[in-house]
Structure formats: structure tokens, C-alpha cells
């Protein structure tokens, strides 16, 4: 018998949990809505293609967009191949008792939980001080400070490291969905292991590799902490032309404009619009990753 009291409590429990769920939807709607509402009127073609002007109180965000694109492209070039190959190693070459594989798995799990700011510290300590300093000493005897400074190269490499686990994990997931039957078919035909990987495994996990890349780019485009002191610049009169140049970046631009601008209130429109651009960018990336992943999962269920 379901008594009236039980039914009442039940309604309460379900109601409260539904409210919590609703709250999440509300939060997402509120954040998105606020930013769209605040940035829509400022957003224009000119805003996207012009450089900031009048002491960053007017103009557009073109250099920040370019800087962000440079950053994620260089980060992907450095990180995606290494992550992909590492995932191939883990899935295809490493035995269950491989020390290297276990080390990598442990490190990847650890890395995924390390705060982004710690990556920034690493970039500073390792890339700038250690590697950059080393290059400078080798080239000029340390007389000239060229590589031992924040720049787009070190920022990209730092970001590549941050996104390495993302790549490894999603490529691994994709490789695992390649049916064992296909590997067996290839090997039984007298294909070698590498031939099997190159002709069967990799072509069949391309979507997953792409997903990994996109997720990494999305993560990289959204993180600011690692580049705070490894290469992002407050303002640059020109676009980066060398690896040793600093660069402007969307997320960093939002941070700077909203906390350290000379006239925070006057530039609200710019801040909102920049945030909107970043948000649209990450939305686009995440949705394409989700779409690709759902295709992989569908394949996995079919086989």
C-alpha cells in the first residue's frame, strides 16, 4: 500500500531532484543568454577582422583570434601525432605487463588531474628557463635573451602537454572499437603487424583520431592559465611572425579586458563580444567532437 504520506515524500524527492536538474539547464541558459545578449550588438565582421585601437578601448579582436589559431595549430602539430602514436603503442604494441605502458597509463591519469596552472609553471621552468635558457647560452653565450622568454612556441608546447592525455584517451578509445576480427583477417592474410596497423587499424580509427584532435583543440582554446606566463601578451601592435614572438589570445584577452583594462565599464561590449566569440568557437569544436564520437559509438554497437 502506498500511503498518502509516502506519496507526498515521493513527490518531494522527485521534485527536488528535478529542480536540481532544472537548475543546471537554467545555469547554462543564463550564462549563454547573458553572453549572447551582451555581445551580440558588438559582434560584427569588423570586430572580427580589426585590431584593437585607442588603447584597447575600441576596435576588434583580430590579433587575438589569429593568436588563438596559431596557438592551437602549433599545439596540435606538436601534440596530436605524439598522442596518437602513444595510443597506438598502448593498444597494439604494449603487452599487458609492459612497464612502459603502465608508466604511461599512470602518467596520463595523473596528468589529467593536474591543475592547468601547474602546466604553466612547468612551461616556465622547463621550456623557458631550461630549454630556452640552454638555447640562448649555446647561441649567444647568454648575452642575448631571445628564447629564454615567453613566446608562442613555448606556450604551444605547454598546451600540447596539457592536451596530451585528451588525445591519448580518445584515440585509444577509437582504436579499441576497431574489431579484433579485422586485425585477425589481416594477419591471417600474411600482413605484418605494422601493415595491419597502417592499413586496417589507423584507417578505421581516423574518426577517433580526429575527435581526439578536436577535443584537444577545444580544451587548448579554452585554457588560459597555462599561457599566463608562457607567451600570451596583453597587447601587440603586430601579429606574431616568429616562433619567438609573443601573441594575443582570446581567453587571455577576456581576462585582461575584464580585470585590467583602463576603463572596464567602457569596454564591456568588447569583453562580452570576445567571450561570445570564444564560446561559439568552443561550442563548434565540442559539438563536432560529440558528433564524431556518437558515430564511433554507433559503429561499436553494430559490431
Amino acid at each position, binding site marked *: 500500500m502506498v500511503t498518502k504520506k509516502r506519496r507526498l515524500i515521493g513527490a518531494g524527492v522527485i521534485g527536488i531532484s528535478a529542480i536540481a536538474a532544472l537548475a543546471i539547464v537554467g545555469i547554462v541558459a543564463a550564462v549563454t543568454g547573458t553572453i549572447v545578449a551582451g555581445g551580440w550588438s558588438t559582434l560584427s565582421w569588423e570586430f572580427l577582422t580589426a585590431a584593437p585601437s585607442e588603447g584597447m578601448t575600441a576596435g576588434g579582436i583580430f590579433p587575438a583570434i589569429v593568436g588563438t589559431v596559431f596557438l592551437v595549430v602549433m599545439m596540435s602539430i606538436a601534440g596530436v601525432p605524439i598522442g596518437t602514436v602513444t595510443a597506438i603503442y598502448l593498444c597494439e604494441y604494449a*603487452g*599487458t605487463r609492459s612497464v612502459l605502458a603502465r608508466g604511461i597509463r599512470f602518467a596520463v591519469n595523473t596528468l589529467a588531474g593536474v591543475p592547468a596552472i601547474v602546466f604553466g609553471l612547468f612551461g616556465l621552468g622547463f621550456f623557458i628557463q631550461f630549454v630556452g635558457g640552454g638555447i640562448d647560452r649555446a647561441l649567444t653565450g647568454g648575452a642575448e635573451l631571445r628564447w629564454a622568454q615567453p613566446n608562442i612556441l613555448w606556450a604551444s608546447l605547454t598546451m600540447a602537454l596539457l592536451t596530451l592525455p585528451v588525445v591519448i584517451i580518445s584515440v585509444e578509445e577509437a582504436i579499441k572499437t576497431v574489431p579484433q*576480427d*579485422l586485425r585477425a583477417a589481416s594477419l591471417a*592474410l*600474411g600482413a*605484418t603487424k605494422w601493415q595491419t596497423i597502417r*592499413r586496417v587499424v589507423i584507417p578505421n580509427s581516423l574518426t577517433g583520431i580526429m575527435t581526439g584532435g578536436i577535443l584537444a583543440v577545444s580544451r587548448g582554446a579554452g585554457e588560459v592559465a597555462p599561457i599566463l606566463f608562457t607567451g600570451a601578451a596583453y597587447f601587440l601592435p603586430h601579429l606574431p611572425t616568429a616562433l619567438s614572438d609573443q601573441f594575443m589570445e582570446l581567453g587571455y584577452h577576456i581576462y585582461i579586458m575584464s580585470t585590467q583594462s583602463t576603463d572596464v565599464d567602457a569596454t564591456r561590449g568588447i569583453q562580452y563580444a570576445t567571450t561570445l566569440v570564444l564560446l561559439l568557437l568552443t561550442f563548434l569544436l565540442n559539438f563536432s567532437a560529440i558528433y564524431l564520437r556518437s558515430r564511433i559509438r554507433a559503429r561499436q554497437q553494430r559490431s
Partner: protein
Amino acid sequence: MTTGPLPLQPKISTSTLSVLYGAKAAVKNVSLDIPANKVTAFIGPSGCGKSTFLRSFNRMNDLIEGAHIEGSVRIDGVDIYDRGIDVVELRKRVGMIFQRSNPFPKSIYDNIAYGPRVNGIRDRKRLDEIVESALRRSAIWDEVKDDLGKSALALSGGQQQRLCIARALAVDPSVLLMDEPASALDPTATGKIEELIYELKDRYTIVIVTHNMQQAARVSDLTAFFYLGELVEFDETRKIFTAPSHRQTEEYITGRFG
């Protein structure tokens, strides 16, 4: 009971072969000679080790971690588990058809050409010839000759399995191992596969694992019955199915267990 040197070697010959997964033996101490250009069927209840035994002929068991063998397997007198043996070369000469048809998600043409290509054949004309002859030999040419560019996955189950046979033939093996090749197919498709097997034995030594006793009776010349990893009886198929000499064989064949 040595009868002196034989005029001809068996195609495949195992001697006290055991296949172990870790400490557990899936195949126990089996000695068996399989003649060339015959169809030999392995029957027995599931888990009796017949598939494992079959997979030891092209060393597919090597892919399972912890699997190893004791005893020996010889093909044309060559010990295939010898240190100096190249597994990749072995598998080119001992083809395998799997229980579930497993075409690559590529075109029909690319499926057949896969083996020749990994062997370094690039010449388009040569590949065309190989593809056509493999498809003809597996009796599927007439059905697919107009859609060689179509995805192999678009074919029916039975066609896919014959495609897989064609794919194996394209590497030109002398032995074909078939691991329950028709278990997932309907009777019509099964019939076609069986017909094909019959035609192929002129050129190939065929070993087929099957749980379907009618199938073994229909297609094979010789039948080996396995039980719990051991070889119980090996004889002419006709004899096994009419006058088995072991009680266990008889009980299995008459359907009392399995």
C-alpha cells in the same frame, strides 16, 4: 608401430601437440596426420579444443598472450614452430577463414587485393588478374563482377563469407583453414559454401572445424572427433558416421551429448 618411411608425407602433421593457455591445456597431446588435397573435418562439442587445434596450424594462437604449445606441428615436413620460421610467411601459405565473415570496410576489389598488396604487388593489371581469378575460384565472380568498387559490407552474409574465401585464395596458400565458416549462415548460403569447399579441394588442403555434423558428413573426406581437448577418433568420414569405433564418438554423433 613403425611402418618404415612413407612414400608421401602428410600435408600437416602434429606430433604430441598440446596447446596451453597459461597452465591450462586446451589441446592435449594430439598426434594427427592430415593428407593433402582432402577435406578434413574437426568435430566435437564446443570447448573441445578443435578451434584451438586448427589455429595452431597458422600460429594464430600466438596472438593470445600466454598461449604456447608443446610438441610439434609440421607442414610438408617443416616444423612451423621452429625458431627460424617466419610467421608472416607461414600465414601467407596457410590461409584462414573465420567463423564470422570479416571483410574489411573497403570495396570488394580492395578486400581481395589486400593480401597481394601487402606482398608488394602494385601493378594494377596484375592485381586485376589476381582479383578476378580469386573471385572466380570462389564462385562469386558472376555475382560481383559489376560492382567491384562497391563496399564489401553491402554484400549478404553468404557472399561476404565467399568473399573472405576469395580474399584468402588471392594470397595463393596451399592450405585453407576454416573455422566454422558457415555457422552464421542460412541453409542456402551454407550450401553454396559447401559446394565451394568441394570444388576447392582439388587445389588446396582444407581443414574445416564445424559443429554441424551433417556438414562434416557432406563435405569432408576425413573426420576427427575431439573431446575435452583430446583426439578421440580420426578416420574416414564415412566410417566415423556409420561405424565409429569409440563409444564417445557414437554418442556425440547420435546426439546424446554436445
